[in-house]
């Protein structure tokens, strides 16, 4: 006669499951926090009021509109602008002459602006913004 052996219930040890959960959470948190971002660094000269107007007039001037880019008076498209700014900046040796004064119309989209900014940066120029300042004049 064959005797039936009673089946034993075996529970897996659950005492370390909280430690495992904790380690997993730390792992996913670290993964989420170190997700790299991509971008374009831009050097900004300290903002100051216009003083040396004569010195600034030597710098290249770029105007950006939603439809085109104007470099020293000539309207250009982005590929042509990239070439022209490279040539223009290569001719300048002093760092202060490589400053490019950028003026944008208020409706210039960021997409267009950042492409122009990248072209100036790639050509070795330092971008500076020319902003219209608001001034209240009280008239008697």
């Amino acid at each position: 006669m064959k005797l039936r052996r009673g089946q034993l219930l075996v529970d897996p040890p659950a005492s370390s499951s909280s430690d495992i959960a904790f380690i997993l959470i730390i792992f996913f948190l670290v993964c989420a926090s170190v997700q790299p971002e991509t971008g374009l660094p831009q050097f900004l000269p300290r903002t100051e009021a216009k003083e040396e107007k004569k010195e600034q007039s030597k710098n290249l001037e770029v105007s950006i509109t939603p439809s085109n880019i104007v470099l020293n008076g000539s309207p250009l498209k982005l590929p042509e602008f990239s070439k022209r700014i490279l040539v223009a900046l290569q001719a300048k040796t002093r760092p202060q002459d490589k400053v490019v004064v950028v003026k944008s119309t208020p409706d210039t989209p960021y997409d267009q602006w950042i492409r122009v900014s990248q072209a100036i940066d790639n050509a070795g120029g330092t971008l500076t913004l020319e902003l219209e300042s608001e001034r209240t004049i009280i008239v008697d």
Partner: protein
Amino acid sequence: MKLARKKLTASVPSFAMGDIAFLLLIFFVILARVQDDSHVQWDPAILPDIKMIGAPLASVAIDSGYKTYLNGEEISNDQLTPRLNAILGETPAGERNISFKVHREAQAKHFEPVIQSIGEAGGDLIHILEPEATEP
């Protein structure tokens, strides 16, 4: 005759410790997420040849509604420079990274005053962009 009483041992039940730790973690994770700007709705501009960037000290964003945020908190442009000055403190130049997230349809009237404020605070501006997909 004196009967010796059996000593009772009182142990703290540790069965629920894992659950408590888990709930505490969820709590701290939610607290930490309050300071980030992942709730800001914006679409990055797409540009070729962009680099990986290091960890910034602060994040300035302009969302699809053209509102400005500093570390996820809505802020007016007047308050931006003093708040950035407080965050950057005496951090040496080159380490004063400020990430700048601008919705791609924002216009110069929205983002240029913000760039000016970051410049006034002496921040090193990093435009956060999406790399252009290259043809295989």
